[in-house]
């Protein structure tokens, strides 16, 4: 089994043409700019298929689809694959439209019951893209300012006969008209208990903004302020990169957030927040990745720093795909609560090279919380 994993990983890394072309198209779609290297093309039918699969594994097929429009006609993939991609783009648009409608329905329901949720990540991140409808949409994440509001929101759903499930991190999820919704009592995925008071004060101070949702509508919802969005996205990526695995979509989200929020927050202030929360080393790795592999211009980063090699992070991303769902042993993990915990502990060990360098304390806190959560449940 071990040998199989090594061969598979080598295969992904060695096929540099399909992979390099994939990143090239991703950058193009992400920033709506011409391709940086047309010499990579044409690709063979097999290479195009590999590129398409890679895009789907990383849930960035919609962004890469946008990148295709920057290729000259003669360098496009076969009509068969092109049509498949176009069909996928229509499905993405529909899913986004449906999710947006359900978000508004949820908001109306909660607000009529005196609860004011904050939309975390997901569709709020999609709004940062030039074409939000082509971002693969996931679940709906709602944050509640107080524990009282959080519990009330959970009760309201249970009152409607909707069963809620407890997640490994303590949040609750349920199915709302076919879409997974998560209720969170925490905004920022940091588990160091010594940061708890600081984060509460910070969230209160920086607060939330209202945005039209969807962009062209007259309906407004609440989202975290730019600096809180950046901290939240960064901590979320760090958690998944160090624990379960992360996909390129989440990295594209923060790249877009840095770009769109440029000038709307104080870079030095964010640097101090990262410093205070022990995220400086990790952020340096993340920022290096964003500039080196996703083409984010350095001027959009919150502060200046020397770049470092981000190859380890790249390898972890390629290994795991979307939230680690494409890691070799993901489908072999047990369905039970304990099996999932064991799988996560193994995943933490697998990503130790990054965590040892960047965020030892945070990983330790996450591991303790996972184990404590198990004891608490049993």
């Amino acid at each position, binding site marked *: 089994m071990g040998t199989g994993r090594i061969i598979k990983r080598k295969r992904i890394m060695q096929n540099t043409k399909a992979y390099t072309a994939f990143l090239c198209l991703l950058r193009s779609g992400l920033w709506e700019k011409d391709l940086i290297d047309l010499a990579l093309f044409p690709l063979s039918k097999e290479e195009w298929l590999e590129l398409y699969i890679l895009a789907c594994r990383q849930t960035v097929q919609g962004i890469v689809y946008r990148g*295709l*429009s920057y*290729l*000259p*006609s003669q360098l*496009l993939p076969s*009509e068969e694959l*092109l*049509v498949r991609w*176009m*069909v996928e*783009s*229509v499905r993405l*648009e*529909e899913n986004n439209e449906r999710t947006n409608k359900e978000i508004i329905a949820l908001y109306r329901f909660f607000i009529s019951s005196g609860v004011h949720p904050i939309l975390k990540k997901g569709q709020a991140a999609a709004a940062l893209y030039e074409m939000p409808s082509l971002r693969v949409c996931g679940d709906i994440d709602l944050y509640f300012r107080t524990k009282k509001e959080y519990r009330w929101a959970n009760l309201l759903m249970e009152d409607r006969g909707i069963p809620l499930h407890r997640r490994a991190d303590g949040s609750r999820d349920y199915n709302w008209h076919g879409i997974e919704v998560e209720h969170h009592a925490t905004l920022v995925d940091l588990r160091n208990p010594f940061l708890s008071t600081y984060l509460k004060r910070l969230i209160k101070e920086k607060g939330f903004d209202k945005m039209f949702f969807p962009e062209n509508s007259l309906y407004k919802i609440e989202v975290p302020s730019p600096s809180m969005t950046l901290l939240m996205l960064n901590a979320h990526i760090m958690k998944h990169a160090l624990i379960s695995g992360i996909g390129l979509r989440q990295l594209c989200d923060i790249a877009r957030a840095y770009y769109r929020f440029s000038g709307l927050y104080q870079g030095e202030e964010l640097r101090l927040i990262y410093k205070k929360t022990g995220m400086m080393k990790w952020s340096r790795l993340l920022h290096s990745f964003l500039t080196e592999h996703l083409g984010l211009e350095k001027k959009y980063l919150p502060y200046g720093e020397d770049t470092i090699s981000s190859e380890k992070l790249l390898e972890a991303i390629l290994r795991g795909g979307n939230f680690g769902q494409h890691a070799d042993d993901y489908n072999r993990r047990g369905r039970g609560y304990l099996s999932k915990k064991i799988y996560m502990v193994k995943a933490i060990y697998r990503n130790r090279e990054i965590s040892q360098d960047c965020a030892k304390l945070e990983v330790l806190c996450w591991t303790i919380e996972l184990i404590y959560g198990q004891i608490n449940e049993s």
Partner: protein
Amino acid sequence: MKINENFKLRVIKDHYFIIDSTQKEENRVDVYKLNEAAAWFWSTLSEKEFTAVMLAECLCSRYGITYEKALTDVKTMLEDWLKWGLAE
């Protein structure tokens, strides 16, 4: 006549397709390939009522062809669109 809004136009360079967005089956979606003129009509006709005569006049001014030729082409195209449910 109106175009069926359930079909979505997709354009990449000189590739024009319309895709039936109502089909939810994983392995079965109706996709129609259009030429540049048909795609141009499709993109400009959204939510508008039109007739063959109107489209033929547009075709004449855009491509500089005779009215008779334009009308024949438009009628053939609209017959196909009606047959396949692309227009109603």
